[in-house]
Each structure stands twice: as C-alpha cells, then as structure tokens.
C-alpha cells in the first residue's frame, strides 16, 4: 500500500503579466506563501517558461501584447501533464460575467479580480492548492487501481491460464475490460484423458476479483489430475471459496467434462449464462442454464442440485460464455443479447470459427462504446479427442513372464481399503488409490492405464454389483442420462453392502507388477454367459453397454473373475 506522496520540495509559480510592477507585487505575495517564482511578460513567453519550468501554479494576466492570457491558457492547458492539475488563475481588473466565463472556458481554474487584499490573495491560492492536491490524489489512486488491474490480469493470464492444456483443440478467446473484471478460463486433463473445462467470472474488478483465482486453479487442476469426479471438484471449490472470499464476492462459473468413452457431457452451471451445445450444421441442440447460485455463496452445495449429463455427438461443440458477451453495449446503450449471440454462433458453427467470430462481432457491435466487462468464450469440440489423447497411455506389457522372473517375484507392499455402504455414498476411492500409488511409487506414465483399469473395475463393482444397474440402459446416448440419474438415486439410498479394494505391488526381476483385486458384496453375475454375449456383438455394443471389461482386458496382463462374479483380479506389468 503506497501513501500519496506529499511534495516537501518548494513549489514553483509562474507569474505572467506585461506590467513589471504587477509581476513584482505578485512574486512578493507568492514568496510569502513560500513559492519560488518565475515570470513572463506575455502569453508567448509564458508558454516557453511553462515548458521549461513545469510550474505548480500559473497566475495569468488577460490583456497582454503578442499573445493574450486566454490563448496562452488554452495552450498551456493542452501541454500540461495529465497527472497534475497545474492550476491556472487569471488575474484581471475586468470585473464582468463575461471575463469570468471566458476565463473558465479558456481552461482557467479560477479568477481573481483586482483590487484584492493580500488576505484574499492568500486564501485564493490556498483554496486552489487544495483542489490541486485532491486532483493529484485522485490521479495517483487511479494509477494504483490501474496497476492492480494490470497485475490481476497478468496473474490470470501468465500464472494461471498459461498452464491450460489442449489449446490446439479447445478454442479460448478472451478480452479483458479496461479495468480487468475477474474472468478466468481453465482446462485440465483427467488421468484417463477426459477433458475438464471451466469458465468463471469472479465479482468485482482488478485485484479484488482475483483473490480466489489461484486456489481455484490449483484445486481444479490437482483434483482433475488425481481423478476426482466433477461433482467432488465443484464441492471442494465451493467450500474453499466460501471460506476464502468475503461475503459479497463469489464466482459465477460453469464446468464441463467431456467423457470420451461415454459420448456424454457432464455439466454444472452456477450463475453463468446458458451454455450451448451446437452441431456443425448450425443446429442448437441444447441450452444448459444456471441451476445453482454462484460458488462461494453457500457453505455447501444445495442438496437437490446435481451435475447433469447430456448426450453429445462427434460433431458437436460446447459454447461457454461470460455475461460480458450478452451485456456488451453499443453507444445507444443497447445490449448485444441472446438473439445476436445465437445468430452469430449459428452462422459460425459450420466452419468452426465460433470463438473468433463472436469476439469480432461483439467488438463491432460495441465499437465506440467503453468495454465495461471482460469478454470470455470457450468452445470445446465434443469429438476427435481419441487421436490426440491416445499418445498419453502406455502400451501394456504383452510378453509372457519368464520362469526366472516368476521365481524372483517379491512383494514390496500391499494396501487394502474396505468401504461400507454409508461411506460409498460420499467417498470416491479412485483418487485415494491413485494418490497411494503416486506416493509409494512416484509419478509414472503407466498410471494412466492403471487409473482406467481401476476406474472400470470399481465402477462395475459399485454400479452392477451393489446398485444392480443394468448396463443395457446405457446402450443409447439418451439412456446414459437416465442411467446416471438412476445411479444417483440408488446410490444415495444405499444402506447395505461393501466394496473391498486390495493392491499388491511386486518386483519381478527388472519388472514391476501390480495386482488389483476388487470384491463387492453383491450377487455377482454369470461371467461365462456375459463373455459369450459380448463376443457375439463385439463390434459396436461394447463401447456403450459393455462392462468396460474388454477395455480392461486390453490394457492389462491378466484378468480373472471368481465363479460367482463378485470378485475380480487384474494384474498389470511394466
């Protein structure tokens, strides 16, 4: 916090009068006010002296040869530094309304009519000095505020948003307002390659609006990387912001998760304008409106509000915007609003230029008007991710282990977690398992496959084993939303049952071997029949309705179910 600096050095005044006598009198009066004084005898000289000395105060006669006081005043005011007022007082014997009005019109800050007593003169100087001091205080506060806004914007773009991922595929456009207004855009990858994106709008301007940005970005990234569900991430962010932010600050935000295997979108909109799902033939397929107050307002999320699941197709795009887009005004005060917005995304959807076109159009619309709020857009393609993400997962080990390796198998550690009904409702063991792995074995590229394997197996145990959901429900994209809803319902009323998770980590010669065992207390399923059926329509059904077992089989070294079908053991070797 800087304090407005008070100038202790002696102030300088410029006295302009064609009468040497007047110059001397005024100089004398000013020096009694502890001013240093320089003088000029006409308007032209005055300008030269002004440029040379940059005085703190100018006293100006009106009628002078060469250039009169009004003209000189106009030029001086045009030259004067924007950060200080450099007050100018006309000294005249013309006691008329016109002289007064002309003086102010010419840029004067006051007028003194002769004759005046030295007391009146001093009072006048004092009052004008007071105004001048206020002016520089306001200016320097303004500069502080501007610096804060710049810092906030730099923080957002350099520190926080520079770590965004997949920017070659996700289109992000952003244009901060004159006074940065707290928009934030984040993207991150889940361990299995699914994409998380967030568009947020903190209340307030400048630094005040960026208090929450760092914890928000950290939590969003760390939890995404560790495999937490969107719902858990949102809960955590809400809680953090509730404790961190003052009562009147909050985050309007929309979250999106594109699930590559399921062809669905998970979304949550808390206080942002509708998100749009639009296909490449310009058809608006879905609008996802705000369903929850902004985050940081309530201590915990409203119980009846859930992440929604929306079917998507390969050629869809998700469009997220901040309210700055819809509320951008033109010089007549009209807002850009929804109609223009929809028209713009429709016409630009076919050639995939939504973000860029939108920003251009809003700028065109509000040309000549001040941009009051940040403009932010995220456009996420729903398809085509597989190719860009595949490289992330490591090919599994496929050779048989040698006898030598099998003989030299050494158990390094084991880990076990059993979750009972009540805990299963609230606890997601996937990040717990992944963080155990990371803590014991460090970061490893193979953990993406381990994550996928573990997620599939655990979800099977919970969804099919305990909740007894039929995976056939998922065979259509719409069915997936139903499935998800049903799952939520059954999960929240789960009262019995448990799932056990066991991990065994071995060293076999130069290789590592991880065995994952998951046992649920459910009825199990007919393993042989399931495998037979799956073989029959192997081609397309597996993707949506399979138990993900095919995928696990592909990724792992071995996979075995017990005869009842409620316990599974997978080994993974690298």
């Amino acid at each position, binding site marked *: 916090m800087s304090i407005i600096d008070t100038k202790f050095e002696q102030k300088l005044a410029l006295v302009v009068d064609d009468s040497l006598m007047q110059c001397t009198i005024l100089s004398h009066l000013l020096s009694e006010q502890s001013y240093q004084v320089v003088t000029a005898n006409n308007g032209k000289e005055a300008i030269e002296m002004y440029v040379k000395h940059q005085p703190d105060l100018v006293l100006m006669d009106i009628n002078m040869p060469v250039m009169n006081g009004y003209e000189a005043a106009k030029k001086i005011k045009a030259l004067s530094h924007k950060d200080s007022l450099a007050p100018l007082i006309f000294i005249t014997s013309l006691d008329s309304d016109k002289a007064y009005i002309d003086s102010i019109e010419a840029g004067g800050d006051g007028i003194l009519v002769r004759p005046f007593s030295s007391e009146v003169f001093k009072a006048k100087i004092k009052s004008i000095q007071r105004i001048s001091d206020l002016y520089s205080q306001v200016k320097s506060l303004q500069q502080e505020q501007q610096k804060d806004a710049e810092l906030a914007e730099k923080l957002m773009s350099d520190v926080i948003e520079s770590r965004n991922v997949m920017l070659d595929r996700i289109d992000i456009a952003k244009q901060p307002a004159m006074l940065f207004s707290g928009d934030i855009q984040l993207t991150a990858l889940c361990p299995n390659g699914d994409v998380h994106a967030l568009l947020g*709008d903190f*209340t*307030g301007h400048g630094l005040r609006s960026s208090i929450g940005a760092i914890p928000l970005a950290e939590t969003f990234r760390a939890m995404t990387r560790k495999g937490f569900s969107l719902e858990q991430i949102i809960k955590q962010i809400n809680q953090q912001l509730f404790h961190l932010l003052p*009562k*009147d*600050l*909050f985050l*309007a935000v929309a979250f999106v998760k594109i699930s590559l295997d399921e062809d669905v979108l998970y979304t949550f909109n*808390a*206080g*942002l*304008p509708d998100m749009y799902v639009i296909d490449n033939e310009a058809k608006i397929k879905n609008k996802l*409106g*705000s*369903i*929850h*107050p*902004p985050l940081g*307002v*309530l201590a915990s999320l*409203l119980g009846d509000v859930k992440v929604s699941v929306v079917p998507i197709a390969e050629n869809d795009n998700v469009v997220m915007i901040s*309210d700055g887009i819809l509320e951008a005004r033109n010089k007549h005060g009209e807002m850009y609003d929804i109609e223009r917005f929809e028209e713009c995304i429709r016409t630009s959807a076919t050639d995939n230029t939504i973000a860029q076109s939108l920003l251009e159009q809003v700028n065109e619309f509000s040309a000549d008007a001040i941009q009051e709020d940040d403009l932010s857009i995220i456009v996420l393609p729903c398809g085509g991710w597989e190719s860009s993400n595949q490289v992330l997962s490591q090919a599994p080990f496929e050779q048989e282990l040698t006898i030598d390796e099998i003989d030299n198998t050494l158990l390094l550690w084991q880990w076990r977690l059993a979750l009972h009904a009540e805990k299963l409702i609230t606890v997601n063991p996937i990040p717990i398992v992944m963080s155990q792995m990371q803590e014991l074995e460090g970061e490893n590229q193979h953990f993406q496959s381990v994550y996928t394997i573990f997620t599939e197996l655990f979800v099977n145990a919970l969804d099919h084993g305990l909740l007894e959901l039929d995976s056939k429900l998922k065979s259509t994209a719409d069915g997936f939303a139903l499935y998800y809803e049903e799952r939520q319902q059954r999960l929240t009323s789960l009262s019995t049952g448990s799932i056990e998770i066991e991990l065994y980590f071995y060293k076999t010669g130069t290789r590592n071997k991880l065995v994952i065992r998951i046992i649920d207390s459910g009825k199990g399923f007919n393993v042989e029949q399931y495998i037979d059926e799956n073989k029959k329509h192997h081609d397309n059904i597996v993707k949506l309705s399979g138990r993900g077992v095919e995928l696990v089989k592909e990724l792992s070294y071995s996979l075995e179910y017990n005869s009842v079908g409620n316990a599974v053991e997978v080994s993974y070797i690298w």
Partner: protein
Amino acid sequence: MPVNHEVSEDGKIVTIFVEERFDFSLHQAFRDAYIDSEIKNGKVIIDLQSTTYMDSSALGMILLLKDFTDNASSTIVIRNANESVYKVLYIAQFNRLMEIEQ
C-alpha cells in the same frame, strides 16, 4: 437519492427502493438503508420498481444484506424487478436463497 428506505410502524418491515442503476456506486447507500435498523423476526423488502439495471456487485450487496437478515432472524423479499433485472437474479439462482416475487 438513489437509495431510499421506509420502516413500517411496528419496525418489522424495512422496504428499500433502488433507483435506476443498482451497481457498486450504491455500496454505501444500500448498506446505510438497513444497517441501523433494529429489525428482529421481520422482513426486508427490496423494491426494484425503479431499478433499470443491476450488476453482480449488486448481487454481492444483497448477499451482505442476507448475512444481516440471517443474524436478525429476518427474511428478504425482492419485488417488482423488471425483466432484465429479474434475469440477473434468476441466472444467479437467487430464488434459491430468498423470496423473489415475480
């Protein structure tokens, strides 16, 4: 005055009127309208009949008021919002936090 208020005779209802733009510039005036009221088990009505525009800092001010009314076992009612003001309240789902008469 851009912010005015009335207190009912029994002191249980405070009605706050906001003129034209409900934005950050009214921060102090809006707070002054209720902060000294000794309301208990009562109601604060925000009457937006003359409000033409509202931004997110206004939402923040209403949240501060909510903190105040919660501590005073009182409630908030928002009424007479025009279409665009109502939309701001609705997008922020303030209908889940307090009563908004349509």
